[in-house]
């Protein structure tokens, strides 16, 4: 049976618990915080500990993907410099932890990051270039989550429906295509299947 690496597993576990907590909160801000629809809010609100543990333990991907790509990240950083908004402490801490983990993976290996976070090479390189101060200041001013759930309600349910021990295999097969950008697009032209 496949087991995700421990740091990825802990990050997925804590982030899913936090997502569920936000979905259960009476202020009903989860949809805007995470950019998810009402069905997905209901799904994560009702997600059991067993399901959270199963997703975190089995999948070799992050269950949260970055909100900003290489094109929108510079604008977010600029807005952070000029803006006066201040994120709530809990949200800021969550964003710091998530963004720092993302940047660490991108610095360690861009190729690993593209798989784990469903991002293209250019985005991974943009996050790898962020220094810690930029991560902290972006997290302080961002009033929404920096990483969004990878799966909507139907996507997560489809993986959870699969038998224990085989979910990573099915998740890889169900992974949607991302639009090729830059170098990938040029190569696809030559290597068209």
């Amino acid at each position: 049976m496949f087991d995700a690496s421990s740091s990825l597993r802990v990050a997925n576990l804590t982030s899913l618990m936090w997502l569920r907590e936000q979905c259960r909160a009476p202020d009903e801000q989860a949809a805007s915080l995470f950019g998810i629809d009402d069905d997905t809010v209901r799904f994560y609100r009702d997600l059991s500990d067993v399901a959270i543990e199963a997703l975190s333990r089995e999948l070799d991907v992050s269950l949260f993907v970055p909100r900003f790509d290489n094109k929108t990240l510079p604008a977010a950083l600029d807005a952070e410099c000029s803006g006066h908004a201040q994120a709530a402490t809990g949200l800021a801490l969550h964003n710091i932890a998530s963004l720092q983990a993302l940047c660490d993976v991108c610095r360690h290996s861009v190729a690993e990051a593209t798989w784990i976070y469903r991002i293209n090479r250019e985005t991974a390189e943009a996050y790898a270039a962020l220094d810690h101060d930029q991560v902290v200041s972006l997290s302080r001013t961002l009033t929404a989550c920096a990483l969004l759930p990878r799966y909507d309600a139907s996507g997560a349910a489809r993986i959870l429906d699969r038998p224990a021990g085989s979910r990573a295999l099915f998740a890889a097969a169900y992974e949607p295509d991302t639009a090729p950008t830059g170098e990938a697009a040029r190569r696809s032209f030559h290597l068209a299947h």
Partner: protein
Amino acid sequence: MANHTHQHFRRLDIAREALDLGARRSVVQLITGISERELRHVFGACPSLTANCGGRPSSVDKLFHGRQLHLHACDFYNSFHHIFHRGVAPDEAMVVAYRHYQRRHPDDARLGFDRAFSIVTSVCRLWTAAAPSLKPVRCRTCGARFLTLIGASEHDDTPCTYCRLAKRLSRHGRVPTDEAQDQVALSTRVRLAVMAGTQGAATRAASSPIQ
């Protein structure tokens, strides 16, 4: 000059990883473009350089002889497909995708690195001038991506390898029992409480009902 040196060291790093993963010399040469002489000079003591002197696996038909082998081929290719199409260089995508494949099948990896290499060359025009003989398609029932022969019909309604696996696993009842699920839930609560750093919270978590 600096960029050229950086690229060369990057290729050497890929070669080291590929050799660690069991690639034969000829495959490492094709992937990295490093000469046999330099490989022997740098990695002289590596057993992969002297073992596996025969021809590398290239038969595509063999992938369709057994369900397990075909499933493993699809699983490896799915990782490679996404990493490569997200802009990663093919040599690095090959190594990282194979490492992910091995991690997903720690006890029963059916594909060797050389076989995985042959799958990539059968699907893409990478490291070869030969026309592709395999193509990745999406199952119209479950949406999974799987490999099929180039000549196969797009409208084939035969269940895909993932549909068949799902059916087989559910038939054999590999879904964990309720008792096992309760234990998992309990361990999660206790672990999270411990991570929060309070023993009292851990005790309370262990005694509270499972959702």
